[in-house]
């Protein structure tokens, strides 16, 4: 009811506003089609992989048996396993570090506002996409075949994987930086490189730090499985233990992997929180 409408002049408009909108708009109808299509795809995949709840239940006793055999863990080879875990961490650290360094350069070349030309931009972005879209195990197989078995191949894999992750985020962070301070420096006659180092990089620093810490966590998780294809680290120890049915030894390895991943995640999360709280304080005061 329109309380201000004493003359009835706005009745036509009033009727229009009280009319509910149609149940389905064109966008929503399309949304339903997409939903039905997605459901059909999931059903199709379900059948294709022979997903069976019955088989899962049938496997439960075996799972229970393996888990029971794992307890108590066998620590007899602990020194060797510790060396392998340490090697895993070293691969992750060095790979992530080199990846971050290269991502930094590629991010600059692949950021629309900093790239020297369209061709460089497309090349840099394409390379980053290639690193991201090819899975890390495929890179690992490639590097094992080209540089041989061992942690060097693993480190290269982590490096390429980090480029795929950080390169994109670094480029986007630099593109999203407020352009006004850059305009101010440009208007004063500062060159492109000076503007980049003096105005763009400091403003994008929080995003760089965030992405780098995430990439380190990701690198530690990835480096564990790289050993499965011979690219160094503790993964190979786990594979051998499982293949030889030495479940107590496998338990020790899994426990140490768990501790390593958890430790790196906690440290990275602490560093992130500490840095972000500084940023928040700076904004609030």
């Amino acid at each position, binding site marked *: 009811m329109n309380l201000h409408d004493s003359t009835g002049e706005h009745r036509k408009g009033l009727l229009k506003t009280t009319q509910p909108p149609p149940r389905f708009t064109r966008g929503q109808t399309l949304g339903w089609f997409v939903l039905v299509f997605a459901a059909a795809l999931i059903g199709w995949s379900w059948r294709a992989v022979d997903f069976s709840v019955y088989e899962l239940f049938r496997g439960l006793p075996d799972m229970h048996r393996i888990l029971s055999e794992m307890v108590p863990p066998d620590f007899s080879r602990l020194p060797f396993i510790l060396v392998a875990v340490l090697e895993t961490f070293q691969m992750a650290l060095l790979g992530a570090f080199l990846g971050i360094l290269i991502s930094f350069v590629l991010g600059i070349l692949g950021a629309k506002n900093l790239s020297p030309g369209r061709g460089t931009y497309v090349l840099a972005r394409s390379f980053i996409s290639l690193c991201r879209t090819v899975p890390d195990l495929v890179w690992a197989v490639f590097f094992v075949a080209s540089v041989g078995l061992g942690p060097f191949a693993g480190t290269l894999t982590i490096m390429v994987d980090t480029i795929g992750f950080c390169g994109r985020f670094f480029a986007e962070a630099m593109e999203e930086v407020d352009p006004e301070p850059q305009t*101010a*420096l440009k208007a*004063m*006659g500062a*060159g492109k490189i000076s503007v980049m180092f003096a*105005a763009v990089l400091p403003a994008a620093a929080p995003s760089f730090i965030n992405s780098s810490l995430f990439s380190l966590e990701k690198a530690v998780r990835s480096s564990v499985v790289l050993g499965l294809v011979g690219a160094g680290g503790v993964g190979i120890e786990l594979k051998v233990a499982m293949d030889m049915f030495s479940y107590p030894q496998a338990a020790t390895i899994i426990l140490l992997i768990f501790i390593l991943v958890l430790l790196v995640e906690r440290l990275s999360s602490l560093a992130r929180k500490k840095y972000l709280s500084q940023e928040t304080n700076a*904004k609030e005061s």
Partner: protein
Amino acid sequence: MKAVVSRAGTKTGADLFIQQVSLRYGSQQVLSDISLKIAPGETLALLGANGSGKSTLLKCLVRLAVPQTGSVVIDGTDVLNCPRRQLRHARSRIGIVFQKHNLVPRVSALSNVIHGCLGKTSDPRLWAQIFTPADIRYKAMECLDAVGMSHLAGRQANRLSGGESQRVAIARALMQDPALLLADEPAASLDPGTGIDVMELFRRAFPGQGKTLVFVSHDLDHALSFSDRIVGLKDGRIIIDTPTKETGKDELARLYR
């Protein structure tokens, strides 16, 4: 204003010729046939309603906006048509202070002031104050002191208030030591008291030292108090061009009707 200004390298202001500048964005004519001659050491206030073309004209003076026709000659350099290297040289002699000060966040006030030298040299040590040579750091501190901000030299730019940020932006322009200073509504985002302080700072720092100053404002009192000459724009055309002494609020008010 302290020693930093009197020791400044650029002794005189720039002279500025704007000839038949016209600019359109798509079908919208923003500037129509603007011609102005500004003498060295003159302080000119650009007035006009929103959308009248004042800020765009200011941008044309440093080629941040490029008009379709016309020329802008500053100290003999045609900034609209010169090669990039010459443009950078010309820009290094033109300071510009923005309404939102445009300081680089997350770096200190001191670093922001040091950036004022980046037009004159590409020395990488100026990118971050920790690497900057001592003499430049001291000069930047003098500039901050001149605007009453030396006690906040180490504070991050994003932690400064609006008035403090604008003072740092002025210190950055002082560091640049320009022959011509452009200011785009420098007091618009500040409270009235701080706004007057900032305008006073401009007067002492630039016209007071013989530099040319062009500022855009919506505040008639600022224009009448701080300029030698007032130019009023309406729909991209100059409709008032008068010495400040010979005009008053009533005449200027027609710019906003």
